[in-house]
């Protein structure tokens, strides 16, 4: 009884999560709690399982939960379909966004918005909103008519992810290395976009290797993910540890 009350109050609760890809266990008993409106940072060495965590939260069928639970707004997500999660307000900014030749950015996003909100949106009304958000992200207007991510540079793809974030306005955004491979100016623009999205209602999980993005965003918590587990959690001061020592001392 008590447990369920706690769970209902929590926005996102991850308990003893074990996840396999193929035959390999990648997450090995991961725990994490996130409240509404909080910004959490997850850092960790390559191969630690950060993208795996993002994918499993979004529901990528390649990843198999073998043990544990993900509870989001009181609902167990474990077996929920990807699109149902999106409709509940979960969003992932992909480390490697897919190219979808043949569908324009505008058509894709308007259809996505209609799918998530389950109501029609007028073309003109949507155009206006899209234009505003693109301006904020310093994207050229003609990109609205380009095929989604096709031939976009690395930086443009990441901006396109943040554009999607701003349009779809999810309650839980998971940003998987959205700042990787971007130059200083592009990181600033991405940070501006994420800041625009940040609110008391919206929670954000930022997976990153760098603290560039974090300088702009003021995270509430920082977690170290090593070998499939959260090995340390704290406030932003943890970043200094990584800067000085890396993750060596957390490996076994």
């Amino acid at each position, binding site marked *: 009884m008590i447990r369920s009350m706690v769970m209902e109050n929590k926005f996102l609760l991850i308990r003893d999560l074990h996840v396999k890809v193929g035959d390999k266990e990648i997450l090995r008993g991961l725990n994490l709690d996130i409240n509404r409106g909080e910004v959490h940072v997850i850092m960790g060495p390559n191969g630690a399982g950060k993208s795996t965590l993002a994918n499993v939260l979004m529901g990528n*069928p390649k990843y198999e939960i073998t043990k544990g639970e993900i509870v989001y707004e009181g609902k167990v997500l474990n077996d929920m379909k990807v699109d149902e999660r*999106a409709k509940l307000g979960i969003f992932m900014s992909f480390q490697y966004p897919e190219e979808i030749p*043949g569908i324009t950015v505008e058509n894709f996003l308007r259809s*996505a*918005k209609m799918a998530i909100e389950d109501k029609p949106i007028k073309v003109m009304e949507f155009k206006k909103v899209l234009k505003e958000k693109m301006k904020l992200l310093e994207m050229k207007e003609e990109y609205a008519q380009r095929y989604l991510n096709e031939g976009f540079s690395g930086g443009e793809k990441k901006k396109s992810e943040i554009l*999607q974030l701003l349009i779809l306005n999810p309650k839980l955004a998971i940003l998987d290395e959205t700042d990787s491979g971007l130059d200083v100016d592009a990181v600033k623009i991405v940070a501006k976009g994420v800041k625009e999205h940040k609110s008391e209602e919206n929670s954000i999980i930022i997976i990153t290797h760098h603290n560039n993005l974090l300088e702009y965003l003021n995270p509430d918590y920082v977690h170290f993910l090593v070998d499939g587990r959260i090995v340390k959690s704290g406030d932003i001061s943890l970043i200094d540890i990584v800067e000085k020592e890396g993750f060596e001392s957390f490996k076994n």
Partner: protein
Amino acid sequence: MIVIKDELNSLPIKTYRWLNVNHLKLDERIEKDRKPFCKRFFEEMDDDNISIGSINNIVTINQHLSRINNEKQEYGVSGKMVDMAENFNNAGVYAYIKKGADIEKPIRIEYGMDRENDVVIDNNIIVASENSRATIVVDYCTLDDIDAFHNGAMKIYAKPGAAVTVIKIQRMNDNSNHFDSNIAVVEDGAEVNFIQVEFGSKRAVTNYISNLKDGGKSAIYSIYIGNRDRELDLSYYMNHIGRRSISNIEVKGALKDRAKKVFKGTIDFKLGSSKSEGREGESVIIFDKTVKSKAVPLLLCTEDDVKGEHAASSGKIDEDKLFYIMSRGFSKEEAMKLIVEASFNPVIDRIPLEDLRDIVRDELARKLIVEERI
């Protein structure tokens, strides 16, 4: 009375019998009363550079008949079907485009089959004179819930330097039969492009041949959808006769439920077709394991100095793309429809009429999503 019991779309050379693709054998008799088609089916053109009329208006045809290259060549889904279309038709258009004329406005032909007019047997002849340019759009559709029948033939004569684009859209209902035979004579330096949208009919059998003379160019861009228990048999043949001729066959499809499809694409480099190039590729997106998809790409070379290639076809949908799209709120069916639409769009965009583009996109969504739920 029309009765069909026939072997259709035979391959130019018979492959191993066990492949079961040498020809489509009709497993049921199609019986239909022959009757007139009493509807307007083409738009008059207000342009002196083109004369267009009903195929039965012998006067117009005779006027230009001397200019037509009457090459005797077998073509089409079968000899009998072509004979029916050429000699016992109830509709069809004859269009003649003058030398050097550039006809911007597409010639629009529309066979809307309804309860009173459920049989279309059309014979169409397009003559594009030297250095002329024209686009012909043909739409075969059913307007009522009927068992419609279509059997048609189209001959395209592209004189030296002419450029002709033929767009055929077939979106008849699931009770109907569709047979379509096409042949193009592509003379020196001429170009004939054929765009085919094959979305309808219980049984859709189409056949296209291009005869390419010196420097002739021809392309086929074809998209198809097979769903429920529908059957498709698509046969394309690029006949390279002249030097430096170029051909391209690009077929994209989506198959779901228990649909069956056979695609036969032949590039034939005849002796004397040196320096010619031909390529063909088919890709199909498979929704369900219960579909049957066969492809028979053939490359025939009597000439050495040619370049022919076929691109590998892919079947399964890209799981990573599917996950990406679904993560934006689309159901699996919607995401797959989106991937199909994305792959079809470059072909749909070649349809020069916006209303038809919209119809085709709606039809695509209906076939891949709405009918899913029935």
